[in-house]
């Protein structure tokens, strides 16, 4: 029962012209699971989610949700799912209540049931007090709570969330995460979430698929993914060097034992190394260049390190860029594609 799958994805592919956004991916999501798609922007997470939620048509491959084909039985699929998009799906000039009422009324829910459900959902996210205020006046945190409960109007068996914590302050992020967990625990809702935030993936997901350039490069639980690093005899060092220079960084990078070097700030380096004599070689090299090591720490691997280890580049690189550009949606996707 526990292992019964609710989503089955087979060779799903989506191309835009010559660009392949999602490249022949296959996976299954078990009933009641929180499943994460982790990767940088442009990795194809959102496109995958859009295909699964019937908003985009696959170029090749198939997927079923609750046994229904996402293309042939899209209406049946839509009854089973809820989607929390990266963009806030709500009308600013309507009140919180009117918004929920409008979207709910599209699901053929009997009027009295819907009225009750709207009130319950507003209570659930502590927005009852503001139910008659236009959502245009809401704070980002309030809006995101609205955005999430909107997806719950039809009591979906599968909830898709596309970057639910993007642009939120830490406290609001925590609230949203707690809410998703509660939903999963209490209602048994299956959750599929895309994110580039390691915290989200680490704290929420039962299993994580690491996505890069349209492909799933690793799929496992967070703990097992981290074992990829420990198993590979790789260590993570956090080095604090008072007189850090770019020359010094280059020297470390060129060492045989070094997998990658990341500069965290003006004096701190994070390096991935392998081999038994890795520590010695790094320290020797720094001393030779008169570097002063003020502290050195052996870190536990994070998902970020796993990503770096597997793909050879960082998640954050492109993710940060996205927030700066403030470009969202299909138009932005186009631009990214061109680039």
């Amino acid at each position, binding site marked *: 029962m526990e292992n019964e799958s609710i989503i089955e994805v087979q060779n799903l592919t989506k191309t835009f012209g010559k660009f392949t956004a999602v490249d022949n991916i296959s996976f299954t999501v078990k009933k009641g699971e929180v499943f994460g798609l982790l990767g940088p922007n442009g990795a194809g997470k959102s496109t995958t989610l859009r295909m699964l939620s019937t908003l*985009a048509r696959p170029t090749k491959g198939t997927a079923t949700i609750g046994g229904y084909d996402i293309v042939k039985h899209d209406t049946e699929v839509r009854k089973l799912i809820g989607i929390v998009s990266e963009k806030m*799906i709500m009308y600013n*000039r*309507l009140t919180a209540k009117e918004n929920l009422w409008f*979207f709910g*009324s599209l*699901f053929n829910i009997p009027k009295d049931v819907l009225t009750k459900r709207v009130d319950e959902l507003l209570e659930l996210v502590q927005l009852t007090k503001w139910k008659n205020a236009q959502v245009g006046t809401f704070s980002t945190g309030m809006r995101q709570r609205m955005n999430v409960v909107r997806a719950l109007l039809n009591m979906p068996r599968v909830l898709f969330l596309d970057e639910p914590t993007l642009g939120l302050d830490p406290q609001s992020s925590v609230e949203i995460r707690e809410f998703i967990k509660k939903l999963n625990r209490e209602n048994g809702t299956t959750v599929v979430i895309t994110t580039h935030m390691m915290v989200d993936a680490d704290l929420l997901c039962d299993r994580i698929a690491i996505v890069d350039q349209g492909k799933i490069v690793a799929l496992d639980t967070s703990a097992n993914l981290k074992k990829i690093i420990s198993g590979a005899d790789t260590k993570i060092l956090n080095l604090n060097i008072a007189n850090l220079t770019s020359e010094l960084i280059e020297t470390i990078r060129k060492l045989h034992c070094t997998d990658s070097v990341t500069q965290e700030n003006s004096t701190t380096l994070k390096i991935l190394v392998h081999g038994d004599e890795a520590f010695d070689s790094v320290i020797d090299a720094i001393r030779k260049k008169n570097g002063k090591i003020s502290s050195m720490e052996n870190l536990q691997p994070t998902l970020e390190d796993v990503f770096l280890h597997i793909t050879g580049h960082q998640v954050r690189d492109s993710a940060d860029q996205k927030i700066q550009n403030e470009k969202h*949606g*299909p138009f932005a996707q186009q631009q990214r594609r061109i680039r």
Partner: protein
Amino acid sequence: MSNMGAKTLLSHSLRIAWKDLMELFRNRLGLVLLIVMPLFMMVMVGFIYPSNGGGLSDMPVALVNEDAGFGNSVLPSQVFLMGLQQINDQTHMLVLSNASSMADVKDMVQRGELQGGIIIPSNFSSSIMNGEQGTLIIVTDQSNPQISATIQAALSAVFNEMGTMLAQQNVQMLSPTINATNSLAVVKPYNVQTEGVVLGTPSYFDFIAPGIMAMTVMMSVMTGLPVAISQEKEIGTMDGMMVAPINRLSIILGKTLGQTARGLIQGVIILALAVGLFGVTIQGSILLVFGLLLLGVFAFVGLGIVITSFTKDQETAQMLMMTLMFPMMFLSGVFFPIQQMPWYMQSISQVLPLTYASQALRKVMVLGAGIPAISTELIVLIVFGVVMIAIAVPVFRRAMTR
């Protein structure tokens, strides 16, 4: 089953239309503009363009009297001046001033102080007294053809009137037994009397009000629809509707209903403004007027949907609409009669649906026409609407699931 389907389709469409109208009514500035936009359009075209040919008045024109007289008499030029004064007092077409010479007048026209001049040459009185034609010279401002033409026309009317008066006097002098009426018949044997289809003289507002109504209502579906839909795509709310288990058609139908309601509201506003502020009268049935507006919307919906399907964002939608709307506005006889245009332009306007919509509306509002009189227009609009919708529905379905 299909009855059920149609019912839910309609119910979803109504929800979407309700939502769109709610948004519209909450947008205060938008509401104000809904009234201001047609008002501006009425005021501008109504007052800028001359109604019944007599739009221009108080044009500064200088008079140069070089008449040397005949013997000691300067009678003919004085008669002319008095006549001119008399007619101008009635029409206020000109503001007359005196100038010293033709060169002076030309100079002032160049500087923009005058719009024209009238010169009475030195031999004016002597020519007339000698039984020859008296010649007058009109100086015109060629940089402004319209004013120049109006001055010429106005002065010609004055000369004509005066010529008639003089001829009448001459006839009476030759045959003292003849009375004034008969002498006029001798001089001017033909007279023209105008008889319209309806009572009264329609103003330019009567001409443009139906056109503007037709245009505004159609614009609301043609621009409103693509803009409303691409806006929802951009802010993301379209996804919210698309993941609901509803027929795709209810989205477009709902949007259309919302925009139609908006267009009709605007149509009513224009009608109220036209009747209340500009004295437009409706000769035909007001129900038929609304029926025609709805038919116009129907004719344009398909086109609106096709455009919606091809535009990805609001900006493109708006630009495309502008490109299409402008020629439509000017070629469909909304502001100017089609008959004024050269034949090739006329043939373009023959294929534009707005031409038929505004023509039918004008016939009903100004001429009090009934359905039989506008059957051609009705057929054209229905056929155009059906064909466009037949094209639009599959195109829209495809565009929605990319």
